[in-house]
C-alpha cells in the first residue's frame, strides 16, 4: 500500500490512501477513542496505521494486558501518571473490576499474577470505604474533598473503581452534610454502591442476651443518598455488628428515586430486618437481573409474598442467590416462572431430595450455572429407607421420570458430601439425564479445615456418568481461604 507523507510533528508518519484522504494526525485522533480490541484490529489492517499507532497502541494494549500482570498497588497507580492513554487504560480496568458482578467463577481460572492484581485492586478500592465500623480508620467525605479537590471538571471521576461504601446512618449532621456534598459533586461517577448500617452497640454483658440493646437505625437519609448516585448499576446493603437492629422511619417504595441503570441488588450481609429489602425490591424489582437474598431474614419466606407476587415483582430475574430460608419458601422456588441462568443455594436445614429436584426441575430449561452449598436430607417418611433403595422411593414419588434434563447446564458446584457416591446414589443415578452437557464439576467445602478427600473410584464413576465432563475440582477451606485441593481431568 502506498501512502502520502506528512509531518505530524513527532516524526514522519504516513497515511494510507483513503478517499477522502485524511492526514495522520486526524487518524491518530480517531483512534485515540477506540476500545483496545478495535485498536488491535486497526493495527493489523495496514502498515501505515501500525506505525502511526505504535506508541499510543502500547498503552492502549495495557487495558487488555494489565489484568494478566502481577503488579502491586503502587505500580498500577504509577501507570496512571504516565500519559492520558495509560491513565485511560488503567481506569477502564479498575472500573470494570469495581462493578464486576458477584463472580460465580472459581479462582482456578486466575493465575497467581491475576490474583495478586485483584488483591492490589482491593487495596485501591478500600480507599473509598466511607463506612467503617471503627471511626478511627474511617475515611471521611470531608477529607476526601479536601485532598482530591472540590474544584474539578465534572467529567473527571475521582473514585477509580467507581465502587464506594457509605453509611446509612450518620453520627452527626456535619458528617451527613459532607457526604451529601461529596455525592453532589461526584456521585454521578458511582456505579457500585454499598450501604452499611453501622450497628455500634456496646454491650456490657455479652453473655446475657436479654440485655442486648437493639440498635436503632434510621433510614430517613436513604432516598436522598440514592438520589445523588443516578448512574448506579449495583446496590448492596449490609449491616455490621450484632444481629439485632431496629429500623425506624420505615421506607416506602415511592420515596426511592429512579435509578435506570440498576440491575443488581444484594442483601447478602443484611441481617434481621425484611422491611427495607422488601421496599427496595418493590421499587426496583422490575429491572433487576441479579438478586442476592438476605442471609438471616430471607424475603422469599415472607408470607405476603406468594408465587404470583414474586413473579410480578422480579419479572427479569436471571441470577439468584438464596443464603438460607425457611422450608415454607421452598415450594415458591419450585413454582416461580423466572428464567434463571444462575442459582446458588446455600444452606437449607430442612430441605429434602424432593425440594431439590423440584427446584432444579423448575429452572431446568435455562440454568447454566448451579451451586448447591447445602447437604440434602431425606424426607421424614424415608428416614427408615436405606440409601440404596432411595432411588426407588424417589421414582415412586415423581413417577417414572423424576428429573427433567437441564440441557444448558455447564458448571455445577456441589457440597463435598455429594462426592460420597454411595450416600448420594439417588442423585448420581440421574446425573446423565439431568446434566448430560456438564463440563465442569466442583466439590466445595464450607466448613473450616474439612479435610475430606474424594476417592478415585468416585471420580471414575462420575466421569463415566457424564461423558462431556472435562474436569472435576475439589476445593478446601483453609482458615477461610479457598484452596484447590485436587483437580481431576478426563484422560
Amino acid at each position, binding site marked *: 500500500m502506498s501512502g502520502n507523507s506528512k509531518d505530524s510533528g513527532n516524526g514522519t508518519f504516513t497515511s494510507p490512501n483513503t478517499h477522502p484522504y485524511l492526514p495522520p494526525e486526524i487518524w491518530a485522533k480517531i483512534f485515540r477513542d477506540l476500545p483496545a480490541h478495535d485498536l488491535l484490529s486497526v493495527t493489523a489492517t495496514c502498515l501505515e496505521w501500525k506505525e502511526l499507532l505504535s506508541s499510543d497502541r502500547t498503552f492502549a494494549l495495557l487495558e487488555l494486558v494489565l489484568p*494478566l500482570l502481577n503488579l502491586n498497588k503502587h505500580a498500577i497507580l*504509577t501507570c496512571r*501518571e504516565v*500519559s492520558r492513554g495509560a491513565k485511560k487504560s488503567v481506569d477502564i480496568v479498575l472500573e470494570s473490576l469495581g462493578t464486576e458482578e458477584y463472580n460465580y467463577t472459581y479462582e482456578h481460572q486466575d493465575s*497467581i499474577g491475576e490474583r495478586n492484581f485483584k488483591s492490589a485492586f482491593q487495596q485501591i478500592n478500600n480507599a473509598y470505604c466511607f463506612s467503617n465500623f471503627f471511626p478511627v480508620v474511617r475515611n471521611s467525605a470531608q477529607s476526601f474533598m479536601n485532598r482530591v479537590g472540590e474544584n474539578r471538571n465534572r467529567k*473527571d471521576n*475521582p473514585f477509580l473503581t467507581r465502587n464506594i461504601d457509605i453509611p446509612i446512618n450518620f453520627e452527626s449532621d456535619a458528617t451527613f452534610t459532607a457526604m451529601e456534598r461529596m455525592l453532589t459533586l461526584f456521585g454521578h461517577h458511582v456505579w457500585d454502591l454499598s450501604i452499611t448500617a453501622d450497628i455500634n452497640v456496646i454491650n456490657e454483658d455479652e453473655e446475657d442476651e436479654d440485655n442486648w440493646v437493639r440498635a436503632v437505625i434510621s433510614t430517613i437519609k436513604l432516598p436522598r443518598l440514592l438520589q445523588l448516585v443516578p448512574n448506579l448499576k449495583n446496590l448492596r446493603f449490609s449491616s455490621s455488628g450484632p444481629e439485632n437492629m431496629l429500623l425506624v422511619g420505615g421506607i416506602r417504595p415511592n420515596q426511592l428515586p429512579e435509578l435506570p441503570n440498576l440491575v443488581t441488588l444484594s442483601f447478602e450481609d443484611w441481617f434481621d430486618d425484611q422491611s427495607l429489602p422488601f421496599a427496595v425490591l418493590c421499587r426496583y424489582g422490575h429491572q433487576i437481573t441479579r438478586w442476592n437474598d438476605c442471609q438471616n431474614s430471607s424475603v422469599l419466606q415472607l408470607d405476603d409474598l406468594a408465587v404470583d407476587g414474586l413473579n410480578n415483582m422480579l419479572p427479569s430475574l436471571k441470577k439468584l442467590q438464596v443464603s438460607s430460608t425457611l422450608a415454607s419458601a421452598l415450594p415458591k422456588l419450585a413454582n416461580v416462572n423466572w428464567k434463571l441462568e444462575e442459582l446458588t443455594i446455600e444452606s437449607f436445614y430442612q430441605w429434602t431430595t424432593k425440594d431439590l429436584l423440584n427446584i432444579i426441575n423448575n429452572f431446568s430449561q435455562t440454568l447454566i450455572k448451579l451451586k448447591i452449598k447445602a447437604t440434602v436430607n431425606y424426607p421424614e417418611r424415608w428416614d427408615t429407607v436405606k440409601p440404596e433403595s432411595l432411588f426407588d422411593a424417589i421414582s415412586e414419588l415423581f413417577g417414572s421420570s423424576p428429573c427433567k434434563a437441564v440441557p444448558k447446564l455447564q458448571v455445577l458446584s456441589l457440597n463435598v458430601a455429594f462426592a460420597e457416591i454411595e450416600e448420594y446414589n439417588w442423585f448420581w443415578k440421574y446425573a446423565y439425564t439431568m446434566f448430560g452437557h456438564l463440563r465442569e464439576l466442583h466439590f466445595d467445602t464450607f466448613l473450616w479445615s474439612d479435610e475430606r478427600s474424594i476417592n478415585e473410584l468416585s471420580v471414575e464413576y462420575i466421569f463415566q456418568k457424564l461423558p462431556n465432563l472435562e474436569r472435576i475440582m475439589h476445593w478446601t477451606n483453609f482458615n477461610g481461604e479457598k484452596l484447590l485441593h485436587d483437580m481431576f481431568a478426563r484422560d
Partner: protein
Amino acid sequence: MALVRVISSDGAAFLVSQRLAKRSGKLKTEIETFRKSSDNSEAQPEIRIVTIRAEILRLVLQWLQQHQNDPVLPANQNEQDGRGDAEMGQSQWDRDFLAPMDLGIVMELILAANHLEVKGLLDITCKLVESKITGRTVDEIRTAFKLKSDFKGNEEEQTRLENRWCVEN
C-alpha cells in the same frame, strides 16, 4: 506426520505439525474438536485465530518450536507458593528472543500466549513487562515505553492527588 494449518487474523497460513500445535492448550482443543466433527480422520485441520496477526503468530510458533521438548507445565504449576516458574524456565534463548522486541510487541505476545494457552511464553513475557513497570518512576516508564506526557492543564496534578488518596488510605 500429521499437520495442521493455523491461519492468522490477516490471512497468513502456517503449516505446523500437530504435535507442536498441541503444546498450545487452545490449539489442542481446536484440533480435537475438528477430529470429532470430521468424518474423514485423515483430513487436515484448519484453525483460524481471529485475534492474532501473522507477525505475532509467527513468534509464538517460533517459541513453541524452540521449547517443543520441554515438559508441559500444568496451568497451576507453582501457584501455591506464588513464585511462578518464569525464573526457572527462562533460558538464554528466551532472553535473546525477547531482547530485540518493542514492548508493544511483547504486550501483543502476552495476549496471544494467554489466548492460545501457552503458559511458558505467557510467564516470560509478563515478567518482562512487569519489570519495566514495578518499582519504576513515571519517567522511567515513559522511557521504556517510548511515551511522552500528553497531560493538559492540571490533569497530571489531579491524577497525582487521586493516586495519593489511594496510597494513604
